[in-house]
């Protein structure tokens, strides 16, 4: 999936917000609990300190020492840490062995791991040391070991939950994108079928009035319009063809009659020329109509399973004498029978057009070929003329029309348009290839060919 695709971005966004929400919840809660436990511990220690310092004011170090011991002996102050030492650091009273070396005198509390006098294991505690007016060092604090343990456990649990939430977030992202693509699948499939020529396809209604439902109904409304326009166009072209044909018929009839009555050779030549031109005009109308119909996907019902090898052999036979008269050759290059369902008459016409072009604009031998290729069947007409350089193939496809206009004739443009329309009708494409030397025009049919029968 492309990182720029909206689906990918959407999935990424869902993922990111899921993770963010989980992280804020877990770490936020941890931080809150931590700060609460710290505040409680400090306030307890400070209350003790204020109480005890009163004894110091009244009775000095000795009274404070007794008060400390008394406080520690009494049951009500579990978790309390108290320590009094003289100016040189010699212990006077309390449940520490010494002033912890890492503890500097300050007004704030520091979290340290220190072992009490009657304990082996160091415990986490908030401590504050201050020098009293007589030079003694007085340490107060609260043990927070058990809270620390709970918090550490909470932290581990948070990390595990976060890891889990990454999985959940990934899943949520996956599900939400699948939801979108699933909702769009019917629309996409419908449009694909319409592009394939089935204009009657519509997006199934799902009754929801969300963005996807709206998109579906808009697509359907557009397709309704396209279908109407297409039907109108078809009626218009059919009518036009019919309307054009009637006067053309009368014109040809008149010329025909004239041709059978006049005897002057000069008049006869003119009549013949006019007849030939009217026939050409007729052929152009027919070709244009064929293109319109093929482009609209009309005619698929006439597909017949046809042996392309036999069909091309027949075409070679028909064209051979004329090509040979020009001092050139036309051959078929096919190893086995290739049988595919095709519109026989349109394919005949398309290949005929390609041969006409090879005769008019190409040179040397003309080779027809048919073979199975990756994912389909390839029918090609190649010549040995100057060809078209590969880098100009795409340009040439678009330019055939104008190239043809420049010649003041018709054939290649309309002819190739027909080849392209016929290829598309068969779910295929028209391609220009280098024949080294010469040009190869290929019709690549998408349908899988039967194994040689």
């Amino acid at each position, binding site marked *: 999936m492309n990182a720029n695709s909206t689906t990918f971005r959407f999935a990424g966004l869902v993922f990111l917000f899921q993770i963010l929400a989980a992280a804020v919840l877990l770490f936020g809660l941890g931080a809150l609990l931590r700060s609460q436990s710290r505040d409680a511990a400090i306030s307890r220690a400070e209350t003790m300190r204020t109480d005890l310092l009163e004894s110091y004011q009244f009775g000095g170090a000795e009274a404070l020492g007794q008060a400390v011991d008394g406080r520690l002996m009494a049951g009500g102050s579990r978790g309390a840490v108290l320590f009094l030492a003289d100016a040189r650091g010699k212990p006077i009273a309390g449940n520490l062995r010494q002033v912890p070396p890492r503890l500097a005198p300050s007004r704030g509390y520091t979290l340290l791991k220190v072992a009490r006098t009657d304990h082996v294991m160091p415990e986490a505690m908030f401590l504050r040391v201050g020098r009293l007016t007589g030079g003694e060092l007085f340490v107060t604090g609260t043990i927070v070991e058990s809270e620390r343990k709970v918090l550490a456990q909470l932290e581990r649990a948070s990390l595990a939950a976060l890891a889990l939430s990454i999985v959940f977030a990934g899943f949520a992202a996956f599900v939400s994108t699948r939801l979108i693509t699933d909702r769009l699948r019917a629309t996409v499939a419908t449009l694909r079928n319409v592009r394939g020529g089935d204009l009657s396809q519509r997006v199934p209604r799902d009754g929801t009035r969300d963005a996807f439902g709206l998109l579906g109904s808009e697509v359907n409304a557009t397709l309704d319009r396209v279908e109407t326009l297409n039907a109108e166009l078809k009626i218009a072209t059919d009518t036009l063809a*019919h309307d054009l044909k009637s006067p053309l*018929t009368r014109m040809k009839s008149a010329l025909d*009659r004239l041709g059978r009555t006049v005897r002057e050779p000069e008049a006869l030549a003119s009549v013949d020329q006019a007849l030939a031109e009217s026939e050409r005009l007729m052929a152009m109308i027919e070709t244009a109509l064929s293109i319109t119909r093929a482009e609209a996907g009309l*005619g698929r019902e006439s597909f017949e399973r046809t042996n392309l090898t036999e069909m091309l052999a027949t075409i070679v036979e028909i064209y051979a004498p004329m090509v040979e008269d020009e001092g050139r050759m036309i051959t078929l290059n096919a190893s086995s029978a290739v049988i595919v369902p095709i519109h026989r008459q349109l394919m005949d016409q398309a290949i005929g057009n390609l041969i006409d072009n090879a005769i008019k604009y190409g040179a040397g031998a003309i080779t027809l070929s048919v073979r199975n290729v990756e994912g389909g069947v390839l029918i090609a007409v190649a010549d040995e003329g100057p060809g078209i350089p590969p880098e100009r193939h795409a340009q040439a496809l678009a330019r055939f029309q104008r190239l043809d206009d420049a010649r003041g004739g018709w054939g290649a443009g309309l002819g190739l348009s027909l080849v392209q329309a016929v290829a598309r009708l068969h779910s295929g494409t028209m391609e220009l290839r280098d024949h080294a030397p010469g040009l190869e025009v290929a019709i690549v049919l998408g349908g899988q060919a039967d194994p040689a029968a």
Partner: protein
Amino acid sequence: MTQKILLIEDDTTTADFIANGLEEEGFLTDRAANGRDGLFLATDGTYCCIVLDRMLPGLDGMAVLAALRGAGIATPVIILSALGSPEDRIKGLTSGADDYLTKPFAFAELLARIRLIVRRGTAAPAVQTVLRCDDLEMDLLSRRVQRGGRQIDLQPREYRLLEFLLRHVDQVVTRTILLEGVWDYHFDPGTNVIDVHLSRLRKKIDEGQARPLLHTVRGAGYRIGAQP
């Protein structure tokens, strides 16, 4: 016996043109300007061929055809139509028509097709093994061709072309009839493709002969026969 042809066509100009042409060629024509009249006349059953326009006021051409065939009338029918798409053509032929001609057409083309159909209807020949035209002979079993006792070597495509011509001796066959009849090819290449075939065949058959057999019919096509 004069052969009668029924022409069902609403366009007066086209109908005049066809009727005049057919009468010049010795046919008798009855005309109907709409499907209902046409069907009424057709049930008479004495016609050797019906030329039926597809788009008619009242009863449409295809409906007339269906009614005829439904009534068991087997008179050959040639459909004339401005609808030239392969689908229309196939639909016409599968609905019981014997031939289908797209407008505009050359009169010679219609005439040739009428003659082909009429001949087919009257003379249903027994299985032939030898086709003849004057001193030209084609043995269908040994696939040998000779003229006046002289063996003629033909390529397979020339053989098939000549066979088709010999099966229609003294009839005019157009280029499109040849493309359809010999190769089952329903697209007119529009070039002189067929002319080249014929000129090659003519070289092999008629060169050095006092009496040419293969004739070009101006504005129509070709004819094989002893008469010039």
